[in-house]
């Protein structure tokens, strides 16, 4: 009796084993594709940039103050593009840091549960609006609005897309820093209240210091986001490489330059084609740098409690 049951089960178990292995192999392949994609990104950018740096010296690339790859007398200095990128991201940060911090403080420490549950979905929706729509908004709503205050503002400028990017990344900055504040143990707040501190004193002197590394990490992630943002600047900043630190002037960012070249349909293998990969490599390095910084900061903050 026992032997017949076993003989009935055995082939099924064997069959099951095989299926288990196949399924696991498929699932593993899908997960491992993340490594493949990262590798592919790095390889593609490096190979095409290598072609670029064969024709342009790295020293010129990093120090020349003109970026005119599509002109007859082409010059390849990344500085104007970097400058535009830093400027746009800087304006965005000036908007996003105080706003994001206030939103996070309010939602984490002050808002009644009902208000928080009502407002958070709206912030998430704000994050879901496509960037091309924000570009439209910057060019045709914010710039005319700013002209009321700065009459001689050109139609294309860095200020307006910078502000719009800033508002765009507020929900992101706020939610990351709110997470950091929520991670502060309640016992710290209770200790502070027990000493007679008010909500504001507790927030500013207990919660914020305890969550500092998480909050700074949120700003780093915000910088990375703002640096990689493309469509808003491509639409509203003018796509003109410009070595300036005046946000009222038009300028091009790294991302806007890539869009501009891609629209022009350059032949495969030309130096203009390769230049967008070199620009993309710089962009990737910058964003990864800020992300790694944020990651390190958060690791530190996780260890605290």
């Amino acid at each position: 009796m026992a032997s017949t049951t076993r003989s009935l089960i055995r082939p099924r178990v064997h069959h099951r084993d095989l299926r288990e292995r196949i399924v696991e192999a498929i699932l593993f392949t899908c997960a491992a594709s993340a490594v493949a994609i990262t590798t592919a990104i790095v390889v593609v950018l490096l190979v095409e940039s290598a072609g670029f740096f064969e024709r342009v010296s790295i020293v010129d690339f990093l120090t020349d103050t003109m970026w005119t790859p599509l002109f007859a007398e082409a010059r390849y200095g990344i500085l104007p593009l970097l400058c535009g990128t830093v400027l746009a991201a800087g304006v965005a940060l000036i908007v996003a840091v105080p706003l994001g911090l206030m939103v996070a403080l309010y939602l984490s420490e002050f808002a009644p549960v009902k208000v928080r549950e009502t407002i958070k979905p709206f912030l998430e929706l704000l994050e879901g609006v496509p960037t091309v729509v924000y570009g439209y908004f910057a060019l045709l709503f914010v710039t005319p609005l700013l002209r009321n205050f700065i009459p001689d503002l050109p139609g294309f400028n860095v200020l307006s897309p910078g502000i719009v990017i800033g508002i765009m990344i507020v929900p992101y900055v706020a939610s990351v820093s709110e997470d950091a504040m929520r991670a502060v143990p309640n016992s710290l707040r209770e200790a502070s209240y027990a000493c007679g501190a008010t909500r504001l004193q507790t927030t500013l002197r207990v919660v914020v210091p305890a969550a500092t590394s998480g909050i700074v990490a949120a700003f780093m992630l915000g910088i990375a986001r703002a640096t990689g943002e493309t469509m808003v600047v491509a639409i509203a900043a003018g796509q003109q490489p410009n070595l300036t630190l005046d946000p009222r002037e038009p300028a091009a960012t790294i991302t806007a330059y890539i869009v501009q070249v891609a629209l022009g349909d350059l032949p495969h293998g030309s130096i203009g084609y390769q230049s967008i990969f070199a620009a993309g490599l710089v962009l990737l390095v910058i964003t990864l740098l800020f992300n790694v910084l944020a990651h390190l900061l958060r690791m530190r903050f996780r260890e605290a409690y």
Partner: protein
Amino acid sequence: MASLSPPVTVTRAAAGIDELRLNVARRRRWDIVFAAVGLLATSVGVITLLALFVDLLLDGYHRLTPEFFLSYPSRRADQAGILSAWVGTCLVMLVTAAVGVPLSVCAGVYLEEYAPRNWVTALIEINVSNLAAVPSIVYGLLALGLFVYALNFGQSILSAGLTLALMIMPIIVVATREAIRAIPHTIREAAYAVGATRWQVTRDHVLPYAIPGIATGVIIGLARAIGETAPLVTIGALTFIAYLPDPPFTSTPPFVSFDWLWSGFTVLPIQMFNWVSRPGTAFHANAAAAGIVIVVLTLVMNGFAIWLRYRLRQRITW
């Protein structure tokens, strides 16, 4: 000392208490002021969302006629439409969903249910979080080098769909993992106890409970993909397309055709970008109208996802 001159101490204490009360009242006021400023800062987002939508509506509402949806782009602004754009968006999304969703869900399931704790898993996890941080335009550069030229897919719907599938992968992986992590271990243990294999546990017990959470991530990911412009501009999406790709269904056997995969294309956000970039308010009105379509589409999808997650949170009774 105090017993020698009680009246002085009492008055001092009284004055001290008054001072203290004033002090507390002042600090309470600052509490309220700060909360008000916080609420104001928070509503900036909501106000922006409203301003953006009202601005689009005012500029583009009059262009939202049936013809707008049924016309090709045109040199004349008042005759231009978004037919090729919305068809392109649908087809690209088809590829993105068909590739991106299974790939990402499987990856998430592996990381949460199968992955051993070793350096390979750690490597995969680091890569997923790195990919989430890569700017979308870099995915465009990857696609340009890999799909368009190295694999020779050309500037096609296939390339575009694959690009967006890779781009939304981290979003769906993270959502899948969170959904699976929320399922209590007792359910798995019960299934293992009656002799189920790992895949049987995953398929019959973990996935059914995780599906609403996974769906939330999928919808948010696809909404992101619908609105994404930069990577598609980079791989060379055309901005002026006055034809439709080959239909996916044919009258002759085998009745299904995949020629559309190789077709050139445009999508809604690129059409909008093209119209914004042109001077002249007539084209800007078209851009606003296309913007309304995109915003409604993505907001409805995101809203649905948020609602789904909210309901999910309400109904959980483990």
